[in-house]
């Protein structure tokens, strides 16, 4: 679960990390009031869960409250990469001497958290990793020992910091580690970490991604989820415990198992079709879950054909068939042509159930994919 900048900064502040003073506004007049209270030049920043806000005009600097109101008027309601901006963060604009980068991620290869720092901040770290790999320093953190002071100091000296900057840097590094580990984050990032001309360090932008699988032990954090940024289909998928990702093609796919779902999409592509979505119903899905999955596909206006691929192991084919029938029968809109490939437990029973409905069944995956592609093309 990704957190907004303002949510990330609230968590940072709780751990003593220096963040600019500010508050969140949902209307231009609120933005004006906040800027007035802050009494200094402010940054007005769109709060949306995508990158590239700056380039899209989602971050404006305002010298006073009136300008802040105007900036908020421009930003609130704008669309950035398809997401409508509903909130802006209004905060003191920091004077920038130097921009650095500090982040913690999970290093999959070494199975450990890794702290990444660079004296070149403000750009995307992946971009920097490609263009200036020598400007990046990486430290694996023993998850049991945690980040030790000397390790943070080593990073500070790697970056060429000295004098009065060593202590704030190590304090921030330790704080970011606590943020990461206490909240079960998979990403905790300060970018840029700014050194002001007066030598203060400030986290001018921040990003936290939480481990969805650990939210059960952070109930207060799970309430931070911004449901306004979810599409209706995403919401339905989340509630039915389905993995769903919308794509830009026209063949709706429903598969049990993530790897097989991707392989099925790839096969559609191989035969010249374009998948409309990734949708994994998981292992051992019952009829109601299957019905919920089909409803999501049926509600997608782009879908011109549907490919359902079930390799039954724990999943029973008759349950799948029952779920499909439920969703088909209840829908009021016309159902696009559907190819269902069922193999495994109770596959005969499943196929018999579907025989009644206007559904093409198949046992071969290749055949099913080819048919679905042909159907989509003929619509």
């Amino acid at each position: 679960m990704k957190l907004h900048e303002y949510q990330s900064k609230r968590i940072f502040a709780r751990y003593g990390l220096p963040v600019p003073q500010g508050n969140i506004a949902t209307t231009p007049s609120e933005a004006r009031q906040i800027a007035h209270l802050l009494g200094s030049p402010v940054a007005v920043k769109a709060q949306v869960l995508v990158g590239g806000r700056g380039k899209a005009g989602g971050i404006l600097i305002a010298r006073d409250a009136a300008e802040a109101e105007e900036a908020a008027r421009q930003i609130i309601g704008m669309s950035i990469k398809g997401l409508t901006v509903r909130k802006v963060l209004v905060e003191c604009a920091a004077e920038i001497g130097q921009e650095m980068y500090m982040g913690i991620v999970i290093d999959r290869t070494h199975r450990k958290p890794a702290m990444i720092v660079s004296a070149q901040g403000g750009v995307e770290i992946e971009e920097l990793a490609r263009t200036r790999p020598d400007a990046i320093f990486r430290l694996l953190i023993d998850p049991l020992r945690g980040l030790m002071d000397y390790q943070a100091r080593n990073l500070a000296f790697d970056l060429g910091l000295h004098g009065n900057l060593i202590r704030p840097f190590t304090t921030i590094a330790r704080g970011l580690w606590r943020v990461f580990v206490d909240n079960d984050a998979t990403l905790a990032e300060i970018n840029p970490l700014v050194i002001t001309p007066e030598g203060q360090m400030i986290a001018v932008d921040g990003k936290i991604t939480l481990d969805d699988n650990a939210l059960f032990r952070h109930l207060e954090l799970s309430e931070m989820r911004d449901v306004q940024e979810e599409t209706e289909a995403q919401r339905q998928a989340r509630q039915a415990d389905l993995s769903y990702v919308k794509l830009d093609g026209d063949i709706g796919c429903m598969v049990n198992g993530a790897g097989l779902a991707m392989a099925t999409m790839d096969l559609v592509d191989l035969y010249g079709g374009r998948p409309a979505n990734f949708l994994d119903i998981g292992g051992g899905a019952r009829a109601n879950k299957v019905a919920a999955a089909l409803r999501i596909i049926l509600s997608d206006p782009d879908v011109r054909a549907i490919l359902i691929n079930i390799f039954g192991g724990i999943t029973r084919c008759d349950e799948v068939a029952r779920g499909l029938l439920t969703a088909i029968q209840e829908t009021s809109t016309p159902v696009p042509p559907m190819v269902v490939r069922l193999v495994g437990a109770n596959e005969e029973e499943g196929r018999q159930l579907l025989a009644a409905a206007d559904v093409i069944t198949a046992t071969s995956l290749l055949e099913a994919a080819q048919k679905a592609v042909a159907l989509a093309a003929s619509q």
Partner: protein
Amino acid sequence: MSILVSKETRLVVQGITGTEGSFHTRLMLDYGTHVVAGVTPGKGGEWVHGVPVFDTVREAVQTTGADTSIIYVPAPFAADAIVEAADAGIGLIVCITEGIPILDMVRACQFLEDTGARLIGPNCPGVITPGQAKVGIMPGHIHMPGPVGVVSRSGTLTYEVVKALTDRGLGQSTAVGIGGDPIIGTSFVDVLRLFEDDPVTDVIVLIGEIGGTDEERAAQFIAGEVSKPVIAFVAGRTAPPGHRMGHAGAIIEGGEGTAQEKIVALEAAGIRVARHPVEVADLVAECL
């Protein structure tokens, strides 16, 4: 021979009294696996499908000589179960559980590094040596004994490939699901090394997917240290960046982990990469 599990395997099922644990214990017993013990704290003294239940893995190991464990414990408690098994002297731990918090796994793996225990998974279908032992949740009947070693990050996709192999009469030495999570106990390289040393494995099938760089490291390892032919498949050529595709580990992040990169790396190492699951069997047949 074969790798990891065999007729000699003495299995303890952690979480045996749960719905899933009990269900799959029945299926593993039916397959012929030696399930010698189960563990559920507080249920010691009960029996499940004729298997004695203990309160602790320690007691199960002492009483039954179990050497391998399979874990069906709910996600919040699964990492503890992994460490419990390792601490009790279990040599091979297969963790089926999906949804374990990443930092729990990071800590558990750190501990496992200090012990001799090997972890397969989590979030995996398990390990099967056809005709000998099934330690997992895969459908046993699609497998048949033979010379093909299979290693995969996926579940049903593996079944699809195994079925295609079996349909062509190509049996499997062992099929290993290493799991779809970002943090897993055993990597492709670890399993490739075992298959390379296994006298009954003649060809190796490697089934990857988007996310991480495990396939790239496997390619490098194969180029340097694997003499047997390897056929690969990588799922997710059409997956968009930045989205988790079902598996917690299947995500293209920061431009890293695309299927294209992995396919390029594998082909650069001289490995043939199939375009779809069924083609894997065609390519394997050409090697034998």
